[in-house]
């Protein structure tokens, strides 16, 4: 699985399940950080007054998370297809 557009040496032995599990944990925490940051930027504009989220901000955040996760899924499908066509090209 590599975007460097050239054939890589066959990896010696597959990745350990532990390594994969850890990378998934890191991936979700990166996803969470990015989604929170972006929904904050899009939904919370005024920094004066109340320090609670108002009703508008709360519903904006809920919709932002739902749409972000939908985008995550859609981009995942596109990346998968690109990977498969890359592998096909390299006779992988």
């Amino acid at each position, binding site marked *: 699985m590599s975007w460097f557009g050239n054939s890589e040496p066959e990896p010696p032995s597959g990745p350990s399940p532990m390594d994969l599990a850890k990378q998934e*944990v890191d991936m979700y925490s990166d996803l969470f*950080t990015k989604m929170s940051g972006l929904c904050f930027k899009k939904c919370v504009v005024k*920094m004066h007054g109340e320090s609670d*989220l108002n009703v508008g901000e709360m519903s904006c955040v*809920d919709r932002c998370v739902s749409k972000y996760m939908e985008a995550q899924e859609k981009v995942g499908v596109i990346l998968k297809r690109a990977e498969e066509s890359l592998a096909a090209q390299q006779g992988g």
Partner: protein
Amino acid sequence: MTPVQQQDFLQHLESQQRKDSLAMYNNLVFRCFDECSKSFRSKRLDDGETKCINVCAEKFIKLTSRVALRFQDIQQQKAKDEAAGVQR
């Protein structure tokens, strides 16, 4: 996974969470200082800047908790859909 691997994995999970908390702390200061710092004529934050940073930090913490809950709702819903073989 063997008990030792499980132990190691929980250790990683716990260390990752601590890392995330420290990273969020730094991100929060960066974001709110960028948003709220207006001038550099004095070495101290003025009242307006301090108020803005407090509101910014409080709102970001509340937003993060809300995002976590919505994120879990969606993951649970996806698991149920997959179990029921439903493609949303």
